[in-house]
C-alpha cells in the first residue's frame, strides 16, 4: 500500500496557489476561507505550517471580517458562520487569537432560535451543522455561556433517529457528516451521556465496506471524507476499535496521487484540497507515524487546542 507521500502533499497544497484557470479554483472563490482552513490544517498536521507566510495569511483572514464580527468566505463577501468558524480556526492555528474581538464574533455566531437550534445567518436556515459550528466557535472563544447550552443539546437530541444516528433536522436521515456535527457538539458541551453509544457505534462501524473505506449512509460508496466524519465520531464515543484501522489506513493511502501529491475521494479519482485534508486528518486520528494528533471534536491539532485552553 505504500506510505504517506508527505512531501508531495505539502507541495500540492502550496501549489494550489500557483494554479490558474482550473475548475476547482473558480468554484472555490466563494469558500476560500474553508479552503484555507483545510489546506493549512493539513500542513500543520504534517508539520509544515512554517512553509506559509503567517502575516500574509492572517492579514487576508482579517480583511474578510465584517463590522458585525462575522467573516466572509473571501474579501468583500457576506459573513456566514460557515466561514467564521474556519477563520477562527485558522487564527487559532497561527496563535493569533488575540486579533479576534470575541464578543463581536459571539453576537454573530450565537444566533440561537427559541427551540435551541442555530441559524447560519439572518435568513434563518436551520441545520445541526450550524449547532456544531456555533458551539465549536463559542467554545474556542470561551463564550459558551452566551447561549443556552441546555436548549442547544435538547434540539440536537431531537434529531436522533431510531438507528442511533442524527440528521440535519428532526426526522432527517442519519448521515455521517451530520452525526459528526451532533456528536461533536455534544462532546464539546459535555453531553455525550445522551448518545446511545453502542447503537450509534454499531451503525458507524457498519459504514466500513470491504475495501476498508467508510461510507456516509447505507448502500453508498466509500469516500475519504468519511474517514474524518465517521472516525472522529467513533473516537468521541470511544468505539473506534470496532472497525479495522489497518484496512482504513490502506484505503486512504490508496487514494493518494503519489506523483503530483494530494488525496482524492476514492482510488484513482482527481485530488482536491478538501479530500487531502480529510485524508491527512483521518490518518492522524489513526495515529499514523509522523503526523501530529488532531482533536476529534475541535478538528484542530491537539497542541493548538491545548494552547487555547491551558496556556491562556
Amino acid at each position: 500500500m505504500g506510505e504517506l507521500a508527505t512531501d508531495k502533499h505539502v507541495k500540492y497544497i502550496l501549489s494550489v496557489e500557483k494554479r490558474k484557470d482550473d475548475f476547482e479554483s473558480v468554484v472555490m472563490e466563494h469558500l476560500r476561507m474553508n479552503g484555507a482552513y483545510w489546506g493549512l490544517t493539513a500542513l500543520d498536521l504534517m508539520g509544515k505550517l512554517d512553509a506559509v507566510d503567517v502575516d500574509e495569511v492572517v492579514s487576508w483572514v482579517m480583511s474578510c471580517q465584517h463590522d458585525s464580527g462575522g467573516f466572509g468566505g473571501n474579501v468583500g463577501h457576506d459573513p456566514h458562520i460557515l466561514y467564521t468558524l474556519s477563520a477562527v480556526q485558522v487564527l487559532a492555528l497561527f496563535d493569533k487569537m488575540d486579533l479576534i474581538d470575541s464578543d463581536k464574533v459571539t453576537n454573530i455566531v450565537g444566533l440561537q432560535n427559541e427551540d435551541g437550534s442555530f441559524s447560519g445567518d439572518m435568513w434563518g436556515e436551520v441545520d445541526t451543522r450550524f449547532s456544531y459550528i456555533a458551539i465549536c466557535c463559542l467554545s474556542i472563544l470561551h463564550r459558551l455561556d452566551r447561549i443556552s447550552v441546555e436548549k442547544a443539546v435538547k434540539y440536537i437530541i431531537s434529531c436522533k433517529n431510531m438507528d442511533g444516528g442524527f440528521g440535519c433536522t428532526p426526522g432527517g436521515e442519519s448521515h455521517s457528516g451530520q452525526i459528526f456535527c451532533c456528536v461533536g457538539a455534544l462532546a464539546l458541551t459535555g453531553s455525550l451521556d445522551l448518545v446511545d453509544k453502542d447503537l450509534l457505534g454499531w451503525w458507524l462501524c457498519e459504514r466500513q465496506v470491504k475495501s476498508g473505506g467508510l461510507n456516509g449512509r447505507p448502500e453508498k460508496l466509500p469516500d475519504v471524507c468519511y474517514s474524518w466524519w465517521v472516525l472522529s465520531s467513533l473516537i468521541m464515543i470511544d468505539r473506534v476499535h470496532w472497525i479495522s484501522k489497518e484496512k482504513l489506513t490502506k484505503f486512504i493511502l490508496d487514494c493518494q496521487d503519489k506523483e503530483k501529491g494530494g488525496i482524492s475521494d476514492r482510488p484513482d479519482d482527481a485530488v482536491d484540497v478538501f479530500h487531502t485534508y480529510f485524508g491527512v486528518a483521518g490518518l492522524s486520528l489513526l495515529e499514523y507515524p509522523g503526523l501530529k494528533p488532531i482533536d476529534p471534536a475541535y478538528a484542530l491539532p491537539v497542541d493548538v487546542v491545548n494552547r487555547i485552553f491551558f496556556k491562556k
Partner: protein
Amino acid sequence: MASGSSEVVEQEQERVMLRDRPEWSDVTPVPQDDGPCPVVPIKYSEEFAEVMDYFRAVFLADERSPRALSLTAEAIHFNAGNYTVWHFRRLLLESLKIDLHDELEFVQRIAADNSKNYQIWHHRRWVAEKLGPDARNAELQFTKKVLSVDAKHYHAWSHRQWVLQALGGWEDELDYCSELLEQDIFNNSAWNQRHFVITKSPLLGGLEAMRESEVLYTIKAINAYPENESSWRYLRGLYKDETTSWANDPQVSSICLKILSAKSNYFALSTLLDLICHGYQPNQDIRDAIEALKIPDLDTQDLDIARTICSILEKVDPIRVNYWTWRKSRLPHVA
C-alpha cells in the same frame, strides 16, 4: 417587471460582455481584492470575472434595480455557490416585489445543474415559505423530480420533509415511499422517509396504529432481500422503546428463523442476538438452525446459543471482529 429568470436563457445563445452593453455603461466594475499573496488564489474565466466585477459595483452601491436582479441571475449561472450573490438577490426580490412563482422556475433551472448546492435549497425554501400553501404542489413535484434522478438526494429529502410539515400534502406520501422502495428496496432514504411518514403524518394515527401493517410490509421486504441493512433497522424501529414487545413478537423471531434456515445471514444473526439479549427464549428450531451454521474450525466450544452466534459473526464479519468479541464479552456467563 423583470423576473431575472428569462435573461439567463436568452444570453446562453449569444452572450454579450457587460462592458459592451449600453445599459451598464454608467457602472465602473470593482475587481476582486485577493490580497498580496493569497493562500488559495483564484484565476477566473474572463466572463465570470467581469460579471463579478459588475456585481461588486452594484452590491457596494446597494442598487435595487431590475438590472441588478438580472445580474445576480448571471452571477448565479456562473457559480451557484456564492452566498453573497444569493443573499443580495433575496434583498432585490423583496425590494422589487417580484412575483415569486417566477423565482421558483429560476431555481428549478439552476438546480438542474447544481442540485447538491446548499444555497439553492435554502433559497428555494425562502421562496416557498413566502408563497405559503400555494407552493405545496410545486414543491412536492420539484423534489420528486430531483429524487427521480438521485433517489438518495439529502437536500431534496430534507426540503420535502419541510414542505410536508410546513405546507402539508401528506395524502400520497406513504404510497410514494412504497413506489421508491419498489424501485430500490435498498434505498435507506426512502425507508427513513417511510418512518418519518408513519410517525409524523397527521392522517395515519402514529407509530402504534401503523405497526401491524408496517411489520407485515417490512417482513415481506426482508424476505425478498435478506441482505438489506435498511429493512432490518426499520423493523427494529417500528417497536421504538417497546423492547419487550419487540423481543416477544413471534413475527420477528420467525423471520430470523426463516432467513437462517435458507442461508447464513448477517442481519438475521445480529437481530437474533439482540432478541436473546432482551429476554427472548429461542425454541428448538432456532437452536437447530444456529447449530447448522456453526463453523467447524471454531476453536472454542460455546456454552450457549448467544455465544455461538457471536462466534459465527466473528468469523463471517472479520472487519468488525472486535465489535462481536465485545458483544460476546457482555453476555451473562453460563455456569
